[in-house]
């Protein structure tokens, strides 16, 4: 089977395959243009008659659970990144598959992390055919160099839910690592020694996978309260010694930055929001991970305090910073998609106003609305932006695939999308003539804030008008690009192979761009 076939140029002007790993896909047609037809996918019906009368679904080991789930060649196995770089289960699944001589699996994680670097050996020996999820660090390098057998597919968190719901990706076996569960399969992430917060990324998998395995190291008597995962979807429960390392949900990107340059960018961003009138009593914002975004949250807090205002809600990625704002009373609710530190976990456990959400509630585009579109301000990073405001978050300017999309694409639905980015990083200008990979169509990006000036998308005349006499340094995006090149020099055009190693999906499941193999 060809990895991909039938290339067309899509509405973003990018050449993309319409046949991917043997299945048909629709090219990007423009923001909001593609309308799905048909009905949601449904897994096979189950019967209580086939499950233990006493509700006890516990089996001896993960291996037994996988065998009983019918693990075989070519299946799709899903896992989740609630433990981020502290995941202990994904590698075990593929160790077992390898031991059983299973081949050609599709791994469908909600995100991958460097702790899963080991899986490269299974990608090489054919146990795993491909990854459809984020490819970070070593896995990204492996993919970029064209070594993956199948074609990898990159989706946003919302796109992942959409793909499962729409039946585009049919999960055979979902393995959900849960810090607390009962024998029936009810599970949550807030309790137990390995509490990591919530299990929202596993929601689609629990609802739509053919077989669902819950793995826990804290088996409590029924009922496990709260049940973030409903046991009614679960086939097997496995008790292990340790399900994950919660301390590792903290990543380097979730601390407030100490860099004076980034703090300056954060300060300018907050000032822009204030002067553009985007901050008001009852406003909302998305506090992402990343040092700059977190600092911006702190500055927003200062503005709220100064005016005696409250934010109605923060959409998060929570850690101690938004939690402090919640506890100080500056914010009424945190609608949380994943916790980034143990303070976030504690708050979610103790504070009823710190609410767990899922990609269904927050991000799913094939739905009757989602929460992301209700947010006033979202602050996002990018590896590159181009003079048409298109942005890239998955590849670097040298062509290497090094980041996942996460909720990034979904957040673009917010009322104002702001990208605070340095004008250059270690000589590499961030604003380019054309991004290496389009992950966001420029029409959805409103403001680029750099340490040397702010560029406002001409589509947002309202913001241009409001800030024209504000004393802020407003420039065109072309001026910013020229300024970076005056400092760094004009970058040479990079050469990449014609061969495609990955595709980037848009939030509606259409194919937005292709990632090319790097020349090594």
């Amino acid at each position, binding site marked *: 089977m060809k990895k991909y076939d039938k290339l067309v140029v899509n509405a973003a002007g990018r050449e993309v395959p319409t046949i991917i790993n043997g299945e048909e896909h629709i090219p990007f047609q423009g923001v909001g243009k593609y309308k799905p037809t048909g009905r949601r996918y449904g897994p096979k019906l189950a019967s209580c008659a086939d499950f233990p009368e006493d509700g006890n679904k516990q089996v001896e080991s993960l291996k037994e659970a996988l065998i009983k789930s019918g693990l075989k060649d070519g299946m799709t196995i899903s896992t989740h990144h609630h433990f981020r770089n502290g995941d202990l289960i994904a590698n075990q699944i593929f160790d077992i598959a390898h031991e059983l001589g299973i081949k050609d699996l599709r791994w469908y994680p909600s995100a991958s992390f460097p702790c899963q670097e080991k899986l490269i050996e299974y990608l090489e020996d054919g146990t795993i055919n491909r990854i459809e999820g984020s490819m970070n660090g070593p896995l990204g390098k492996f993919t970029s160099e064209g070594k993956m057998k199948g074609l990898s597919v990159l989706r946003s968190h919302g796109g992942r839910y959409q793909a499962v719901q729409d039946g585009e990706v049919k999960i055979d076996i979902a393995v959900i690592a849960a810090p607390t569960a009962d024998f029936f399969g009810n599970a949550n992430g807030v309790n137990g020694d390995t509490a990591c917060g919530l299990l929202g990324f596993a929601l689609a998998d629990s609802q739509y996978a053919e077989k669902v395995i819950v793995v826990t190291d804290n088996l409590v008597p029924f009922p496990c309260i709260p049940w973030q995962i409903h046991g009614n979807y679960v086939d097997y429960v496995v008790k292990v010694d340790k399900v994950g390392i919660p301390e590792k949900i903290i990543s380097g990107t979730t601390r407030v930055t100490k860099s*004076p*340059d980034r703090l300056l960018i954060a300060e300018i961003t907050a000032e822009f929001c204030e002067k553009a009138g985007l901050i008001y009593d009852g406003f909302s914002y998305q506090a992402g991970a990343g040092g700059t975004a977190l600092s911006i949250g702190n500055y927003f807090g200062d503005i709220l305090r100064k005016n005696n205002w409250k934010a109605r809600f923060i959409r998060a990625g929570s850690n101690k910073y938004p939690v402090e704002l919640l506890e100080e009373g500056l914010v009424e609710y945190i609608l949380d998609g994943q916790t980034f530190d143990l303070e976030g976990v504690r708050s979610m456990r103790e504070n009823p106003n710190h609410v767990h959400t899922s990609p269904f509630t927050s991000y799913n585009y094939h739905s009757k609305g989602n929460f992301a579109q209700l947010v006033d301000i979202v602050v996002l990073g990018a590896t590159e932006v181009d003079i048409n405001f298109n942005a890239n978050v998955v590849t670097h300017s040298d062509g290497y695939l090094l980041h996942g999309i996460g909720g990034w694409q979904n957040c673009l639905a917010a009322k104002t999308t702001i990208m605070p980015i340095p004008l250059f*990083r270690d000589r590499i200008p961030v604003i380019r003539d054309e991004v290496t990979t389009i992950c966001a169509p420029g029409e959805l990006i409103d403001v680029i804030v750099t340490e040397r000036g702010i560029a406002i998308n001409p589509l947002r005349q309202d913001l241009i008008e409001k800030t024209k006499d504000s004393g802020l340094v407003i420039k065109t995006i072309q001026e910013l690009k020229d300024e970076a090149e005056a*400092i760094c*020099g004009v970058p*040479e055009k*990079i050469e990449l192979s014609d061969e495609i190693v990955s595709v980037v999906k848009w939030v509606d499941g259409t194919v937005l761009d292709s990632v090319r193999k790097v020349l090594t």
Partner: protein
Amino acid sequence: MEFNFLSTFVTFKIKNNCMGKIGIAGNQGKGVKSDCQVQFEFLTEGGINIELNSKVQVLYGKSIVKLAHDILSHFEIENARLLIEDTGAIDFVIAARIEAAIKKVIDTTKDFLLPVNKENLGSTNKDDFRFSRLYLPGNSPKLMLNAGIHKPNGLILDLEDAVAPEKKFEARFLVRNALRSLNFYGAERMVRINQIPGGLDDLEFLIPHNANLILVPKCESAEDLHKVNSKIEELKTKHGINNDVWLMPIIESAKGVMNAYEIAQAADNVSSMAIGLEDYTADLGTLRTKEGTESFFARNMVVTASKAAGIQPIDSVFSDVSDMEGLAENVRTSKGLGFEGMGCIHPRQIKVIHDNFAPGEVEIEKAKKIVVAFNEAKEKGLGVVSLGSKMIDAPVVKRAQNTITLAINTGKLDKNWLDK
């Protein structure tokens, strides 16, 4: 043995016993960014062999190699091996490293100079505000690129304490290139040279390249500044430079404190005088405390001597970069003693320093009343200014005018306040 190539058409000579010697310049290793390390080996045959390992290879590899070729050809080197380990250095950094590596091996009268950034032309004024001046280690390019965007009044490229002895040679090239190419975003271009007499040699790398102000460390006498000035004059004449070059001596010893007045009035181009408390307290054999009791006398001396000589007294740096409250308190004390500026070692200190040196609201309101009264008196042709029933002396008016200027310059007062 000395090889002299002057007899052919080459204008350089290999330093004594340097055949096969490798010249190394620049930094490499963990945490080093925006820099490069260059190894230059002079050869007698085999042509030019440039090896580049760069983090930005695919985006700038070709232009870096071209720059390296240009530099080698500028120095008329036809056979050499050049190894460049690059972590994202921009051209002026790469050029400085290559030139330093070459000059460790060969003697030449030539310099490789990149064009001057037009932003960096022009002089500053003797009485420009010098509230904040940010120290930048003279051999660390990473910290230089964005320093100006934090808007200090001055940026100091430091050749003295921030540069290790074995790096002093290469740092001069980097500082020279920075003076020409780096955008200072309007900050005064300052350099701290090494202690006199050694520091006099630094001036050749600074005066022809638009340095605005020279900080003279561990200054102990007017004589130190006379030496600096005579070197500056010599270089100005040689290179046809008309720009003003101001001096800021730093008093860092008991002797310096006792000679403070002599130093402050040593020459017309002494614009300001700073105190360096780390070295001063060491000289006293005491410890530097937050309260600063041990340096109270020295600070007063520097302030009083400066005021007597009509120049700006500048306070020492506050070294705890995480303690912004402590810094603010320190600035208020400093201002209370009569200082008109302070050094910074971190960009986040700049705003705190500006905010606290700037006049407060009460101060501004009072000054406004005095200036208005003065203007009215002048209009009416009155010789005496009075506010209410109080007579206002000329120095009080002058101080009020200074406060207004300061308030406008620090954004605390609209420049058209009189019209409103």
